[in-house]
């Protein structure tokens, strides 16, 4: 089934088949949902907004609200200024958010809508805010859009008043609410006073209470975003995703920054913890040491099952790089690393990783699609796939097990509530990988080789 992929790899310059990325606006929408009492607003055709809400809803299984400028033929000729003006009025009148976070689309970008002027001219009620970012769909990917929206929020809101607030600004990268909760937990354990932007925990993993709230309890507060300019320093997790906002906050408000890979696996979580330790000067508490020790213990107990297993990892660049490092810690061979997001950075980082671990015969490629990855696998197979839902077609066609991690996962539940970052996230990942490989061994082995104890 679904096996139309020819083994022979032919050069393609124009045709994208089965993408490993989507467009900027959905990333911007996700980032905006991580601001408390915020209405994300899509300045473009209605379909964009509808598709993005559908996409996010399918991944998080939670409502994703956003409004649209609802472009018509007229707007595409005369510009979307009046649409945005009407939209801003209607949104504040009816949905009453504290802030509207506008992102553009390919349409409004191409017709050259000037959002800065539109927003300056708009009537914004006292104490309310409208911010925007440019997210042309034909540049970068959803990851770029996510970075752009965070940067846009800082651009409009953050201020350096000259009085430091003693806090760490944390940019979590394009991760799930479950990951954000884990990052926050670790900061709290390390005694770090922080502001995280965005924070979709409590928004896209909001609990069932019997009432629907358009703006759930979670999300970074506007006052906190303003106060980001007074932070002692910022830490950007996921170098590709979080560098832009961290650099921008430095430029605008003189907040020095550091970027680190997403804290996936042992060493990268260590780096995160040590960075927090340098910031807070607090000792690493036993609770974290214990978690780390447990994770290492698990890797030790089970290493025979993961050693030398070949894995293909695909998805968003920072996530794939983190997962690749963890795979290497498990003794696996991250044979193929693939992301759809364009940019050389991914390949450079991946190659450095291969070198560091002496991993031979591994390839990493950015600006790539799942079709090509499938072709690679057809030519030289792997034991395991790690990535999002769309990999299930490859998994089925090639009969290779798939561990779901990353974005989007639209065919499973619970994933967005639990972390893959931190030591706890490492345990969860290890469990998923081991269960998948060992279930497979149980399924495939001859009766006489069936083992009771593994």
């Amino acid at each position, binding site marked *: 089934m679904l096996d139309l992929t020819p083994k022979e790899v032919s050069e393609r310059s124009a045709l994208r088949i089965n993408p490993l990325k989507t467009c900027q606006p959905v990333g911007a929408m996700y980032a905006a949902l991580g601001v408390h009492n915020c209405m994300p607003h899509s300045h473009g055709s209605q379909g964009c907004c509808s598709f993005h809400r559908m996409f996010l809803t399918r991944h998080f299984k939670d409502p994703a609200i956003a409004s649209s400028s609802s472009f018509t033929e007229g707007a595409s000729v005369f510009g979307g200024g009046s649409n945005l003006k009407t939209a801003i009025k209607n949104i504040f009148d009816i949905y009453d958010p504290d802030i509207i976070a506008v992102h553009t689309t390919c349409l409004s970008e191409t017709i050259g809508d000037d959002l800065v002027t539109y927003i300056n001219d708009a009537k914004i009620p006292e104490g309310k805010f409208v911010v925007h970012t440019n997210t*042309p769909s034909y540049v970068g990917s959803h990851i770029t859009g996510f970075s752009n929206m965070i940067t846009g929020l800082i651009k409009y809101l953050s201020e350096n008043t000259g009085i430091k607030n003693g806090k760490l600004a944390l940019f979590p990268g394009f991760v799930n609410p479950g990951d954000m909760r884990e990052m926050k937990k670790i900061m709290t354990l390390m005694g770090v006073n922080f502001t995280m932007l965005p924070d979709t925990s409590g928004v896209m993993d909001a609990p069932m209470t019997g009432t629907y709230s358009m703006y759930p309890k979670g999300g970074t507060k506007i006052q906190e975003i303003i106060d980001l300019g007074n932070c002692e320093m910022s830490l950007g997790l996921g170098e590709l995703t979080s560098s832009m906002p961290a650099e921008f906050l430095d430029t605008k408000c003189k907040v020095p920054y550091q970027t680190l890979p997403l804290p996936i696996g042992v060493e990268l979580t260590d780096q995160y913890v040590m960075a927090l330790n340098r910031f807070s000067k607090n000792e690493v508490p036993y609770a974290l040491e214990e978690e780390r020790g447990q994770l290492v213990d698990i890797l030790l107990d089970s290493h025979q099952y993961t050693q030398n297993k070949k894995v293909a990892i695909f998805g968003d660049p920072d996530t794939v790089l983190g997962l690749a490092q963890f795979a290497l810690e498990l003794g696996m061979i991250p044979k193929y690393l693939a992301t759809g997001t364009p940019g050389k950075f991914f390949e450079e980082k991946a190659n450095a990783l291969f070198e560091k671990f002496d991993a031979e015969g591994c390839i990493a490629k950015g600006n790539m699609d799942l079709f090509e990855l499938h072709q690679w696998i057809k030519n030289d197979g792997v034991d395991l796939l790690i990535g999002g839902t769309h990999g299930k077609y490859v998994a089925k066609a090639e009969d290779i097990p798939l561990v779901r991690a990353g974005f989007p996962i639209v065919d499973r539940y619970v994933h967005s509530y639990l972390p893959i970052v931190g030591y706890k996230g490492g345990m969860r990942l290890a469990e998923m990988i081991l269960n998948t490989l060992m279930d497979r061994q149980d399924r495939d082995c001859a009766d006489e080789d069936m083992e009771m104890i593994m």
Partner: protein
Amino acid sequence: MRNENDILPERAESIRFSQCSGDGSGIKCEAESISGSVSQRACVFCGARVVLNPITDAFHIVHGPIGCSSYTWDIRGSLSSGEDIYRNSYSTDLRERDVIFGGEKKLTAAIDEVMSMHSPKLIFIYATCIVGVIGDDIVAVCKAAEEKYAIRVIPVKSPGFSGTKKTGYKAACNAIMSLITPEVLPPKEVGVNILGDFNLAGEMWIIKNYLRILGVKAISNITGDATSESLKKAPSAQLNLVQCAGSMTYLAKQMEEDFDIPFIKVSFFGVNDTSDSLLRIAYAMGDAEMVRKAKAFIEDEKNRVIPLLNKYKRNFEGKKAAIYVGGGFKAISLIRQFKEFGIKTVMVGTQTGNKEDYEMIQSLVEDDAVVLDDANPAELESFMKEMGADILVGGVKERPLAYKLGIAFCDHNHERKHPLAGYEGTLNFASEINLSMNSPVWEIISPGGNKNV
């Protein structure tokens, strides 16, 4: 108390409370959405894409930036009995330089690349928003490709901003007409085309099986489980059955005009609609034997299915339903179906229903029901709560909303879990709403088992 403060003043005319308007003629529908509303609606491209997507052996190439193709990749759960090509995502992934210098060359190259790897019979090229603005001449590119490769390469003019989802249905119907219009009309065959079933969860197969039992030949399915060859046979049919009227009435009218094929509207949702439709098909075919077979089959099926449905009736007693779906015709079918179950429909809304749909809806629901066009989540929430709905029938964006409100849910859209058409579909539907309304999860929502937290 109506939460009138929650309604945008501009929206007031798109919402009707039955007791004040009576005939429904006053509802405002088929209009552009208001800027700034959290509409559940999609765009022209989406309309075109969902109608054509089920054509299984077509290469659907989305000409635009990557989003439009990634969001519609294998979007709607249409099943295939053969080819799987349509379940892949093809696009030109337009980048900044393409937007500046034009995307025609890239589109031509993309078609060449498809041709170098596969032997397609049919390619659709979808124009998205940006293509409409940068002025790529996709018609010329398609024409050149047709000449070069001697296959059909059909442009679908669907820039998202150029109307509503319904405009997209029309664009898709035009593309279908372009594919199926023969040079010379073929002689008529005794048989029908099925229009407006997309084979979600295999529903087309259920309908085709019914027709087989009646002795009615299904010539072409449009578009569920269709192939380019099967579609081209459509002009020889003597009758068109139109199921999803919202998307397909336009095509049926075109076919009536150009191919001299009359059409009847049918619905296979619910026992009554299914039975009624089967009989009408048999009569329309003008064959006494078919009528006899239809009557016998309907009776058998009713005898089989109604006792099974009656088992649910106790669970359904006193329950109230809310409906929010894409088209008016489906909404009407669902109201009737709920009636069969003894469930009262208290709120009905659609994204694209027209005046006639809304008049029909008004005549089916009770006086206190709320009827609304192009609703947003806030309206859905406030009316479902106010009306005390126990279950919502809707699509992907409505599911988590319903659950957050503690209301049961059934997807009657792309994510339906089981076929919901025909007699077995009615059983599935009853089983699904019963499971959702009576799930043990409602008992544990709050400590102590009080559902109404």
